[in-house]
């Protein structure tokens, strides 16, 4: 039981990270109708930028950890968002009215570019950082000595996710930008006729998605203490699985799917085998798409001629 509770905590934390990435997938899919294959690599870039900012701040002699974290968060969100914007501009916008496989292939190309770009610029080796946020709470100690730990970093990941989700939900449901986004999602032509700047709205979608991925990258860096150039690929597929599981196009669904994938992966590793945890996640993707193509919270898609 204690073991189960500990795994539950770990799974929820991992799921929060997946959920943050999944939102980027689901938003872009909802509006442009394409799978942004490079989104996982944006997450990786976010992690790297966070790492470099950390290094610079520490070598500048900053010691106040909350200040460092805030600066790192803002810098990494800003620069990664610019990456998202640039990629949309270069690789996706010219293809918006091309045939349907073109944006997907372009996205795959972009994913290779980003992966190898960070390999070329930062080297192939894993980059570890020392733990910044240490300590935690012991929730329960069983007689046989098993301890349920809730570390501060885990609390931070979950709280950051909740705060960001609140801001994000407000953004989508209450602001002008959110209204434009929802309008573009329903009918781009009609939205354009009614004075919505479709290009700008789509750009902003990529910017927001990338910024959330950057937060996920930072959380990953803090939680696991390392980044490497290849981590975007698998994390990207898992987050996509989460988006599909939650119902692609649905924002609460993405978060829900992320939590589900995080829990499934953690429990699978804990009770079955660590080696096959990725197989489990990928199998879920296949199973969900076969039996529940609309996901948990998605709307059924009507095929139009």
């Amino acid at each position: 039981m204690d073991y189960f509770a500990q795994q539950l905590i770990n799974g929820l934390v991992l799921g929060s990270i997946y959920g943050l990435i999944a939102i980027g997938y689901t938003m872009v899919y909802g509006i442009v109708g394409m799978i942004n294959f490079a989104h996982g690599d944006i997450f990786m870039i976010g992690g790297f930028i966070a790492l470099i900012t950390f290094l610079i701040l520490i070598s500048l002699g900053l010691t106040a950890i909350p200040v460092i974290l805030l600066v790192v968060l803002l810098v990494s969100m800003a620069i990664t968002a610019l990456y998202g914007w640039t990629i949309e501009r270069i690789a996706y916008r010219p293809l918006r009215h091309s045939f349907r496989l073109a944006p997907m292939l372009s996205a795959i190309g972009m994913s290779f570019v980003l992966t190898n770009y960070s390999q070329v610029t930062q080297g192939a080796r894993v980059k570890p950082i020392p733990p910044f946020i240490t300590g935690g709470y012991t929730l329960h100690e069983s007689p046989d000595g098993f301890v349920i730990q809730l570390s501060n970093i885990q609390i931070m990941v979950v709280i950051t996710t909740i705060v960001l989700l609140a801001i994000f939900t407000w953004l989508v449901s209450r602001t002008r930008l959110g209204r434009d986004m929802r309008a573009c999602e329903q009918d781009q032509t009609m939205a354009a006729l009614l004075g919505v700047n479709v290009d700008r709205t789509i750009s902003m979608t990529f910017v927001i998605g990338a910024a959330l991925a950057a937060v996920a990258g930072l959380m990953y860096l803090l939680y696991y203490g390392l980044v490497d150039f290849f981590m975007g690929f698998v994390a990207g597929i898992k987050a996509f699985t989460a988006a599909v599981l939650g119902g692609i196009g649905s924002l609460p669904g993405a978060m829900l799917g992320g939590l589900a994938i995080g829990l499934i992966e953690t429990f699978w590793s804990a009770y079955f085998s660590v080696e096959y945890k990725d197989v489990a996640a990928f199998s879920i993707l296949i199973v969900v798409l076969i039996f529940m193509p609309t996901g948990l919270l998605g709307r059924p898609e009507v095929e139009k001629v």
Partner: protein
Amino acid sequence: MTAPSTNTAKPATGIAALLKTAFTNALVALVLFSLMVGIRTEAGSSGQLTYWTRFGELASLVAVVFGGSIVIELLRQWIGPTGAERLVPPAVQSGMSLIGGYLTPALLIFTLLVPVIFYDQRYILDLAILVLTYVMLGWGLNVVVGLAGLLDLGYVAFYAVGAYSYGLLATNFGWSFWVCLPLAGILAAFWGVLLGFPVLRLRGDYLAIVTLAFGEIIRLVIINWQELTGGPNGVSGIPRPSFFGIPLDNSDDGFAAKFGIEYSPTHRIVFLFYLILALALLTNWVTIRLRRLPIGRAWEALREDEVACRALGINTTTTKLTAFATGAMFGGFAGAFFATRQGFISPESFTFQESALVLAIVVLGGMGSQLGVALAALAMIGGFELFRGLETYRMLVFGMAMVLIMIWRPRGLIGHRAPTVFLTKAQAISSDLVKEGHG
């Protein structure tokens, strides 16, 4: 005097706008590259991260972006608005089609003669075999992507199934290549059906992701099922192919001794060359024949419009399934060939990058065009060889090329979308048959 003034004013604003665009681009590049290029991190010997600055590289990259955007912007103004179809003069067009008509036989004859011309150059022969392997993979995937319009991102899984089928059957049971080759194809096709059956109802991009997941699952299972596959160490000691039962070695009943010629290790290379050439041509021939059959026509119809297909009574699931299985079978053949050529296989060879490479060959070649795929494979693998020393840069360039091709020519170099079979003359249909009037 007004005309010259407007003439001079126009380039002036043009230059201002040009510089502004270039400046903005450079600024964006500066922010993008500032940390990733300007700072280099590395884990030190004690595990402590260190960093050093590379502002020189950063500055030159930003300068390149600045200059590059000026050049691109100038080119754009010079060439004219994009999207305008450039008309090709009829004479050039007919000349092109004349060349096109002779190109295929000429290429085929040249390919047949490659081992004769380059008999002494082992490197070129090896490269030619590699190119032909990718030509075959490209033609196999072309059935799925080019003809049926299904985006398959896990094609390498079938390649892996074929390779491991031959590798394991040959090392465990000692079966010969010629027995295993069809088996490898059948097994790969079987896996294709097994995967395809449940997932082919999905829409295009969902299908892509599912095939990608499937490819990864196969690779992960190969890595982790160590008792069967040897895990990351792979399968080694896979027997070399024999000349229809006669081993191509230096022994007394080897190929050289039997035919009374002097032994040379090149014999095997030449044999492998013709083997893969035959397999590739088989793929090509089957594809061309299938395109003229109802099933091939159904594939092409499916690519153009799935809903219309369904309305016309085509069973889309079986149609997709046959395309998937046919493509998978050729992937399996190519895998078996790969295993016998290398003598050693490991999961390293079957990563997503391979899938993407084959897909890029098909897309670059123009989906559906057999000649285009062959030329694209030559260009792609040849290009990879040029970047041989720059291992990390070549995937970077590959990715950029993929994006640029999609922007520049989304239909590939030789776009081929015309249906293989069509009515040659228009037929008027009686108004009794179509209520709206003439058909």
